[in-house]
């Protein structure tokens, strides 16, 4: 089985790219692969505590929680990007990592494939 690193810079609300990244992660984990998901820029809002589930907006936390439980999925917020948006470690959902950008590059070092989804 392989390892996939996904970098996603798109917001939870306002773009479907993050939905795609999580769906792809789910499919890969179900096939037995490991996935590292790096959230940078507006993507960091995925880790914010207290999200509400409305039908008109994406809600990915249930899927992400299950993925974290699988043990094959690491999800990490860019610390600087999150803090710039007022999202501190205390505001971040349990199970999310918080790291500097070199974490993403280190994941890239050891991965089999990268899917880099830039921002809007």
């Amino acid at each position, binding site marked *: 089985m392989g390892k996939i690193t996904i*970098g996603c810079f798109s917001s939870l609300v306002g773009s479907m790219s993050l939905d795609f990244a999580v769906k792809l992660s789910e499919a890969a984990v179900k096939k037995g692969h490991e996935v590292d998901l790096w959230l940078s820029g507006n993507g960091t809002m995925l880790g914010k505590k207290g999200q509400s589930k409305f039908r008109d907006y994406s809600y990915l936390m249930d899927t992400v929680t299950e993925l974290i439980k699988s043990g094959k999925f690491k999800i990490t917020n860019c610390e600087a990007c999150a803090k710039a948006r007022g999202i501190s470690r205390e505001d971040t959902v349990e199970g999310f990592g918080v790291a*500097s*950008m*070199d974490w993403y*590059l*280190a994941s*890239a*070092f050891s991965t089999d494939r*990268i899917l880099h989804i830039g921002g809007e």
Partner: protein
Amino acid sequence: MAIKKIAFIVEKLPYKSETSRLALTHTIASQTVEIHLEDGDNVEPVLAFVGEGVLNCLKNQKALELYGVSSLEAHVKNALLLDLRVLVCKEDLEGFGLTEDSIVMDAEEIGGEVTTQVVPYEEIQQDLEAADHLMFF
């Protein structure tokens, strides 16, 4: 012990979105990636500006004065200070009527020793083909 080459390709405009800024900060983060890796392992970045992305390299940006944020010009200088390989597509630069005089070519004033390389796209393509991973911003 291994070195993985990552190519960061910047094709977005400066300031219109956060994208090109994140390209530069992620590229510069390659300088501290070793702390996450085994001894002897490392990442070798190359930073290439193509298309509208070449405008990130313009001189005399006023981002700090106008927006209160660091300029992309300053980030390019930081990349040069860290001896990163910085490439600018010659054809795209000329397409905007720009020359080497229009863009950041060095970071001498802060102690940088390497310079920006304005090269034909063909040369950038060779770097992309030699890279282990590509990140488009």
